[in-house]
């Protein structure tokens, strides 16, 4: 058992080193110093309190999305539609804010309602992918991908149509909401402790849901063997739907954070691709909720750190994406190899 764990760790470590190696080779091929690039990325993410706060800003939605995806992954579903669920969460949050724009309700209540609205919006969008899967026989990957495009189109339509700024519509989004609609931020920083708290609560709930509840056990049973789970008496399609609803709600919460704590309005790329990035994190941690926090933090740091690259080294900031992608591929490869060797011996 302990040897297994140790072996596991060794494989993962090898994957990590290999992916840094591959990215180094890419950097060398364009005459850039890998050492300098990695150092700049590190400095760009952990170099100062302000920078670390930026990392946390990216960490919040990434962690929420990952938490949601752990639920659908456990149910054996590839919820690619998570990206659209983030977007719909943001749209629903914006809608609630707009609805209460002129009301006299206390701002704290409005914020709470807006976040709740975002979760419901994400859950409903998730349930669409679920309905397509359960009743329409549409694979959740195709259904989710389609819904992602619809969600993006819907954002653009709202920004340039019904919710456009007075005068001229703009890619910079809708009119920013008044300051009191924002989740409280740490002074001089962009991070909201509330948002951070919500994300951490999200992952903790998912951890206990999957580890300690009958619901989680049934969900895993459905994910590992749909047919046998049905024969064991588990209402299988209902559990598939529940997982879409939960994941959608958590993704919707991520979208709500983007509006309520970061952008204070709806912008075209409101999800910032955190849905897709969350899929990478979820794949990397392979269902283990415990690892979600460090890995999501690492990925957020890569994203933020790479922002420095164009400025300092004239490298494209998509380098972080390359590193993340390569890392996931190597980790999957490593676990594949490990299983192959385990079978042989």
């Amino acid at each position, binding site marked *: 058992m302990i040897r297994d764990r140790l072996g596991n760790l060794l494989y993962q470590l090898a994957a990590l080193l290999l992916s840094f190696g591959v990215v180094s080779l890419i950097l060398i091929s364009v005459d850039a110093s890998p050492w300098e690039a990695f150092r700049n990325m590190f400095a760009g993410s952990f170099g100062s309190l302000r920078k670390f706060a930026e990392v946390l800003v990216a960490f919040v939605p990434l962690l929420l999305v990952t938490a949601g995806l752990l639920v659908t992954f456990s149910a054996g579903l590839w919820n690619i539609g998570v990206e659209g669920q983030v977007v719909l969460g943001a749209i629903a949050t914006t809608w609630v804010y707009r609805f209460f724009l002129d009301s006299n309700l206390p701002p704290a209540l409005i914020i709470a309602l807006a976040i709740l609205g975002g979760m419901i919006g994400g859950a409903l969008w998730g349930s669409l992918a679920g309905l397509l899967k359960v009743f329409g026989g549409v694979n959740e990957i195709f259904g989710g991908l389609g819904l992602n495009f619809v969600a993006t189109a819907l954002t653009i339509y709202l920004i340039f149509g019904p919710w456009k700024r007075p005068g001229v519509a703009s890619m910079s989004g809708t009119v920013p909401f008044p300051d009191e609609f924002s989740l409280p931020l740490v002074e001089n920083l962009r991070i909201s402790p509330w948002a951070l708290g919500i994300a951490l609560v999200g992952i903790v709930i998912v951890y206990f849901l999957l580890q*300690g*509840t*009958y*619901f989680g*056990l*049934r969900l*895993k*049973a459905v994910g*590992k*063997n749909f*047919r*046998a*789970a*049905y*024969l*064991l*008496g*588990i*209402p299988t399609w209902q559990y598939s739907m529940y997982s879409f609803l939960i994941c959608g709600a958590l993704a919707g919460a991520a979208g709500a954070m983007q509006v309520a704590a970061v952008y204070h309005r709806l912008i075209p790329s409101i999800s910032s691709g955190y849905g897709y990035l969350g899929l990478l994190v979820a794949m990397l941690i392979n269902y283990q909720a415990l690892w979600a926090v460090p890995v999501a933090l690492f990925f957020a740091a890569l994203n933020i750190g790479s922002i420095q690259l164009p400025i300092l080294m004239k490298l494209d900031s998509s380098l972080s994406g390359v590193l993340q992608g390569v890392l996931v591929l190597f980790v999957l490869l490593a676990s594949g190899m490990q299983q192959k060797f385990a079978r042989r011996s």
Partner: protein
Amino acid sequence: MNVELKNIHKHFGNVHANKGINLSIPSGSIQGILGENGAGKSTLMKILSGFIQADPGGEIILDGKPVVIHSPADAIHVGIGMLHQDPLDFPPMRALDNFLLGQSGGLFPNRNAVARDFRRLAEQFDFSLDPDSYVDSLTVGERQQLEIIRLLWLGARVLILDEPTTGISASQKSKLFVTLKKLAGQGMTVIFVSHKLEDVEHLCDKVAVLRAGELVGEAKPPYTTSKLVEMMFGKVITLGARQPAQGGNAVLSLENVSLEDVRLKIRNADLEVRAGEVIGLAGMEGSGQGLFIRACAGLVRPVGGRIILNGRDMTGKSYHAFKRAGVNFLPAARLEEGLIPGLSLTDHFILAEEPDGLFIDRAIGQRLAEERIKSFNIRGAPHTPVESLSGGNQQRAELALLQDPLSLVLLEHPTRGLDIESVIYIWGKLKERCRSSTAIIFISSDLEEILQYSDRVLVFFSGKVSRPLDAGKTSVDQLGQLIGGKNWADMGEAYD
């Protein structure tokens, strides 16, 4: 082509599927291969046709020359073509495209020339096949014909047919037989694998019988059916005294039930199962018993008739409704349908209990698992993942998942692949259930098991269901004949 198999062995893990088989088939003859499910027929034919390789030491000799066959492509290259029970074609494509797929080489096929060959071959055997028709619009019989001419076109001189008469009409069957005789007359070697005694007796120049991986004997015409049956199923061994059931109330009644799937139709079956009774379903795999047992579980919706469970009409209800009414179904495919790989024994027992509440009580789960592991003699620990248990222990684990009390247990091959001790143990457990008024319906391909443990037996043959036979008054020989489709005329009340 003369085909000679020498000392063919094949192991799958611990299973010895072919035990030193020696068989010689002269050119121009039709060789029958007879045997019950799991006797090793398919393994032997797959070795000959390159799907799997025999263990080292065996030889395949064609016309006196040893050959090495590593793949189906190798097989067809040396002239061996196999027609599978489920035709291996591409339904959404045209017949001609299927024809072209197996051709090696050539980037741009000459469709016109191939279409000419296609028509010539089809004409030769009097097959009315249109090269431009889509394969999914063809009947099973026509797909077979397509496959035969495809293999001939590719140069097959040995044709292996695996259960070719399943799922085709009587006229297609007689046409197939005419074709096969014609092919043998042209010097082809035909190998005909079947469990249908009548077909084999009618067609084959020579029959080899396999049992438990061994070639137990060969026979030549005129055939004696009872001799063949004895060779197929072996000597009758009694497993001890039978325990007759006490007559209880009707638990399950099927009234005029009709069932359908892609291959089979069962018409107007009637059955009444009483509390504490054991009903055995006999028949070769795919004769309709699987459909029947799944209908009893609510997993297959009947197209006609009614299913009554404990006096309540359950027709069209879901398996979960059946389950709530006291029915449990244990499928044959343990790791595919019965158990959940990746979950532990404890997880399974917790799930099967259908607990309420939110948080898992690990202590209760642990205690439950320890209890069940002990009382079902499972070699494994509570945290053992089910996929790392041996087959027999998986089977015991499945049985340990049965709820209590139950009015009906449905089992597919409850003891397949298990050693005799496990079989006796498992039936001991099941008979305990019967004493507490649970009725059992089970499928088995082991005729002795069926006669030993059932009170009544239903025999299935190509979707036909026999009337319930009294297990105490039926012999293995009678059952074997019925399974092979013989003597059904005497079954006056058989449902057709």
